[in-house]
């Protein structure tokens, strides 16, 4: 293996590039770009297996959402393998995962969400003097705008009107959700 590949200096940059491509879906991070920018002294033939190895390691860590104990065990095993990684490289990978774990996890979550997500919410309260929908006068009304959309698609805006009764009905539902969440989050 070329001496440059054994070093860990450019590895951090390589892992960032891999994350951009594999998890964040940024286009244009080619193998040739990574090689020429980070390992210009290394031939493409030597670079490819190295890149695949690092990609495989990163994907394994992300796919298993490894905690730090699992990560240590996994990387140690990689250093002991034939054609594995060096302890210095293991340290770089470990540091990278610790700082990028949350963002990568979020990207993976978004990749598997195919329904619309809530992108934005704004509201105001109007004091209405008359209403098409009810005989009440001088009753405050909340106007809420929800912005929802699927990944990569334009937003849909939903504009809803709530009187006090409606708001309380929704509040009751949301407190049920909160209760369910609390129950779920309790340690088994």
């Amino acid at each position, binding site marked *: 293996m070329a001496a440059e590949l054994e070093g860990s200096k450019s590895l951090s940059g390589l892992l960032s590039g891999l994350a951009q491509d594999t998890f964040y879906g940024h286009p244009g991070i080619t193998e040739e770009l990574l090689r020429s920018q980070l390992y210009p002294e290394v031939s493409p033939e030597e670079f490819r297996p190295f890149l695949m190895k690092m990609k495989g390691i990163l994907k394994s860590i*992300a*796919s*298993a*959402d490894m905690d730090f104990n699992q990560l240590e065990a996994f990387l140690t095993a990689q250093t002991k393998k034939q054609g594995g990684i060096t302890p210095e490289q293991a340290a770089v990978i470990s540091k990278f995962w610790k700082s990028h774990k949350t963002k990568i*996890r979020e990207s*993976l*979550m978004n*990749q*598997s*969400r195919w*329904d*619309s*997500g*809530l992108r*934005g*919410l*704004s*509201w*105001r*309260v*109007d004091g209405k003097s008359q209403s*098409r*929908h009810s005989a009440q006068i001088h009753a*405050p009304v*909340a*106007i*809420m*705008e*929800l912005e*929802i959309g699927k990944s990569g698609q334009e937003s*849909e*805006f*939903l*504009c*809803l*009107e*709530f009187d*006090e009764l*409606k*708001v*309380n*009905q*929704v*509040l009751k*539902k*949301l*407190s*049920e*959700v*909160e209760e*369910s*969440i609390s129950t*779920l*989050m309790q340690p088994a």
Partner: protein
Amino acid sequence: MEGFSELRMDTKSKVTSQLVDFQWKLGMAVSSDSCRSHKYPYVTVMLKVADHSGQVTNKSFEMTIPQCQDFYRQFKEIAAVF
């Protein structure tokens, strides 16, 4: 997500709909082809809304737990204004 009670909101749709029903589901994503170990909870909401002509449509969307908690907080703020 911002909430504010002044008349500054610039709505993209000027026509408002009425909320007819609000249903929710709390789910847990366990695994997917992009990640074998997700373990993240999420809330799916199904709104039945009636437009000015009375036609009812379903709108559903997903929220993360923090988003859902913020959603709840916004409604509590609205109730406080009332």
